[in-house]
């Protein structure tokens, strides 16, 4: 081991020394940063993978498994209800992603940029900011048989007990809908940033000049461009939906859970050898995610081709000739659906708020029978540390994530595209969190580090960075580089051009990317628990601990607090002036 390490160090040192001499790699700050990012992402990812692969092949010496064997695979395949678990994972993960994509398509074709769209966008901000777990709880309190919607319906009938219908259902449909409601706003945000970099006005004007209606043009011209631009975010949503744990525990079936939930169950089994099949399961889930992403990419490409062929072969009617084309109808339906979806999400938000100030609120009462701030007082007595931890952690992680993303882009621009690098950035999103982080934990501890802040920051960064990078990727690629070229030609140094021109003009995308990273950090559960050893309590860890208890009121308070921070940040990010309004005339 020692020899390997010193050889490795020597090797790295040699590379560094040789490189500048041959003129291949001058040590620019961007380059140093980029290598830093690569190490930061690759190291933990590799550690996590090792902790996953070894037990999957029967290697776990501390537990007495010191030879490669198939025992883990045998135990995994012998688990009851496995096929059903696969089916549920696919239904909820694929279904959720598909629904979210459809909603986003509807939004792009019918709402983005219109006054309706803007109003909706403002209303959706709380949903974007709300952590997954909180939204899931809110939806359940809204739609369950004893939920608020049913009480509204039942109010005139003096019913004493709630009706019975399966929600959450046994087929993963509730879970798919819940995931879609949470992920669609994220995709819409991505679509929004993509749109803001397209010459939308010019395209629409050209189309209108030819006599076509706006809805036709949105569906035929804007939609495919936007969908192509948000392919990566859709991939992230797919990976997340297939591997989600906390939401699946609330909205998914329990008799036979999804694969991800099954993994966590095995991982938490009091029999430590249950981790061997869990490792196999984690690998299977990772393969499933990768396979589904490949499939999704192929499907998306052929759908876009199909769309193009269809558009080319079906010439639309001129707007003047037909007052109500099917395109217009489509727009109305899409708006209606989007309106309902927004309303439901907002109601979930309201229900959480009411629940947090209710002392007693039992079926069939429409409103709480006793109100009071006691839950908030109790929470503030116990959650002070968690609140400040969450805040500082998210501030730090979001800032680092944005700086590192910029560094990555700068380097990427310099040397052309590096596919491998993007994959590295993406790996943490592809692997099931729980199992991957356990491997990381073992490696991290054996490097001599203690559980605590440092590990948690790295753990959060692993997941916040890809999202920050994703959010920034579209705007970054579409930036008008002629501005920078002009500045370079005027003799300005590169760093000054980066900061003075590009970053300044991209202030708004930067702010939004920062806000997304902030929200991601706030919502992290597994990395915080595993790498913090419980020493860094955050609002999320406290919410989940409270959610396992029997008091919905405290859970509601924790969920409110958890949602407040990212919400505030999102509102601030929106207040940042859009870059285009700053006119680049000086220089």
């Amino acid at each position: 081991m020692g020899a390997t390490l010193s050889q490795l160090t020597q090797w790295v040192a040699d590379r560094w020394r040789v490189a500048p001499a041959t003129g291949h790699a001058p040590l620019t700050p961007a380059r140093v940063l980029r290598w830093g990012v690569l190490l930061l992402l690759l190291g933990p990812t590799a550690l996590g993978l090792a902790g996953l692969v070894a037990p999957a092949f029967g290697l776990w010496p501390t537990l007495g498994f010191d030879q490669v064997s198939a025992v883990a695979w045998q135990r995994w395949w012998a688990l009851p209800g496995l096929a059903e678990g696969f089916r549920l994972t696919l239904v909820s993960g694929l279904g959720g992603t598909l629904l979210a994509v459809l909603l986003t398509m509807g939004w792009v074709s019918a709402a983005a940029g219109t006054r309706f769209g803007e109003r909706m966008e403002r209303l959706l901000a709380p949903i974007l900011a709300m952590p997954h777990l909180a939204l899931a709880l809110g939806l359940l309190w809204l739609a369950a048989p004893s939920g608020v919607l049913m009480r509204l319906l039942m109010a005139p009938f003096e019913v004493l007990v709630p009706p019975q219908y399966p929600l959450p259902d046994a087929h993963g449909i509730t879970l798919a809908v819940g995931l879609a409601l949470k992920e669609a706003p994220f995709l819409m945000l991505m679509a929004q940033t993509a749109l803001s970099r397209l010459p939308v006005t010019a395209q629409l004007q050209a189309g209108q000049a030819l006599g076509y209606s706006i809805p036709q043009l949105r569906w035929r011209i804007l939609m495919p461009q936007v969908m192509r631009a948000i392919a990566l975010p859709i991939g992230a949503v797919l990976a997340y939906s297939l591997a989600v744990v906390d939401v699946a525990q609330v909205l998914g079936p329990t008799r036979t859970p999804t694969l991800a939930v099954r993994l966590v169950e095995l991982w938490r089994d009091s029999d430590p050898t249950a981790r061997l099949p869990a490792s196999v399961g984690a690998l299977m889930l990772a393969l499933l995610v990768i396979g589904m992403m490949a499939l999704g990419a192929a499907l998306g490409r052929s759908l876009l081709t199909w769309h193009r062929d269809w558009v080319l072969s079906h010439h639309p009617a001129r707007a003047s000739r037909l007052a109500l084309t099917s395109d217009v109808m489509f727009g109305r339906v899409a708006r209606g659906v989007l309106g309902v979806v927004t309303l439901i999400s907002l109601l979930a938000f309201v229900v959480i708020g009411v629940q947090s100030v209710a002392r007693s609120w039992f079926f069939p009462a429409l409103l709480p029978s006793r109100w009071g701030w006691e839950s908030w007082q109790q929470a503030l007595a116990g959650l002070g540390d968690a609140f400040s931890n969450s805040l500082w952690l998210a501030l730090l992680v979001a800032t680092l994530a944005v700086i590192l993303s910029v560094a990555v882009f700068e380097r990427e621009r310099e040397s052309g595209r590096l596919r491998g690098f993007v994959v590295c950035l993406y790996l943490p999103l592809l692997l099931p969190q729980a199992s991957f982080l356990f491997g990381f934990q073992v490696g991290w501890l054996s490097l001599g580090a203690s559980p605590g802040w440092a590990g948690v920051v790295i753990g959060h960064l692993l997941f916040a960075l890809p999202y920050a990078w994703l959010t920034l990727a579209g705007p970054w690629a579409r930036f008008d580089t002629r501005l920078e070229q002009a500045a370079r030609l005027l003799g300005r140094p590169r760093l000054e051009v980066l900061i003075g021109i590009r970053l300044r003009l991209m202030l708004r995308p930067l702010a939004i990317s920062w806000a997304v990273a902030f929200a991601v950090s706030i919502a992290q559960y597994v990395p915080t628990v595993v790498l913090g050893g419980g020493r860094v309590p955050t609002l999320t860890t406290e919410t989940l601990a409270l959610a396992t208890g029997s008091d919905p009121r405290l859970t509601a308070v924790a969920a409110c607090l958890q949602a407040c921070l990212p919400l505030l940040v999102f509102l601030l990010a929106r207040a940042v002036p859009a870059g285009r309004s700053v006119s680049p005339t000086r220089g």
Partner: protein
Amino acid sequence: METNHKPGRRRALALMGGSLLLMAGVSANPWSTALAYAADAKAGRPVPELASLKWQEIADKARGQRIDFHAWGGSEATNAYLRDQASIAARQQGIEVRHVKISDTAESVSTLLAEKAAGRSDGSIDVIWINGENFRALKQAELVWGPFVERLPNSDYLLEEIGARDFGLATDGLEAPWGRAQLIFMYDSALLESPPRSMQALLKVAREHPGRVTYPQPPSFHGTTFLKQALLELMPVEQREVLASPVASDAQFAEVTAPLWDYLDALHPLMWAQGERQPAGAEEQMKLLAQRSVWIALTFVPQEVANARQEGRLPPTIEPYIHDGGTLGNVHYLAIPASAPHKAAALVWINQLMSAEAQAAKADPSRWGDDTVLDVARLPPQERAAFDALPRLPGSMSPEALGTPLSEPHPSWTDALEAEWARRYRN
């Protein structure tokens, strides 16, 4: 700027390779040290420097230490109680207690295993709230430190015979009794005229009101307890002693448990959500009870109903009851991991939680409502007074109503029941 993207790619690949090497090195390393560490733990028990100290010296050593106490954080009653006790500990003993609120004790067992796998002797957990299967996992992996219970001054007043066996497994003084629990059922008196005081009566309620009865899904703690309770009730009383010893054979298990599966086969289609979905734990079932989606729930805290009714978590129509043949009871404990870095303070903290003052506060139904592990009759009069002054709230269970708890079957029965349940009912 238009440069060399080939060398860049090569270097990236090289770096990836390097990381793989590093990963192989790092991941091979902990396992060798972990084995060495396990050997140390065996040789070094009990830790000598503490073994030779008097209690006062331990208390002095503890002063100024900060401990991480891993305990389920799902109940505000529990959390508030621990906050109070932590401030007392800071004031009187000079130790700082950090309550690490976990959602499942198995998480902490995971952490200890990871730390062991990484070859760490300085762990991140000083005290852990534990019992049953999690204790067994730690004991088998030799991750608990002790024996220490007899060294605690407050252990003098413990109930006779308490805490010798935890779910049939000898505790060997490796964990200190902290509270007594018994399986309690609760029902909504506005919806049911009288509570079903046996498993058969419960089935009858399910027939009359389909969809209003359920139990938490095994292997959650309360779900497995429900299985064991049903098994005990459904088998002839004279046969029950076979449960005290390990499962002898598959045939014996099949024969003994046959009535249980017949019962569940009849119950499941009549359950809430047709048995397709069961509450993840007793807490979820209690939330369903509060909303009248189900009409019966269960808990392990004898004064839970009183506490929840007072706090407004349950409607005032909910009443507690137990089955006529008695219900299972057990004890929960506090243990110190072998890798705990602050063992002195851990001992002082556990001793404090075992004091009459702390136990009386814990038994207060308006705060937590957990039965004490102390023999109140043997306590000095001024300490007994705190117990005598405990309030009686509406919805509380009297000791007479609780009766003598049934004892837990041998852990091998628990394992076998959970496995067979999963085989039969997890599709």
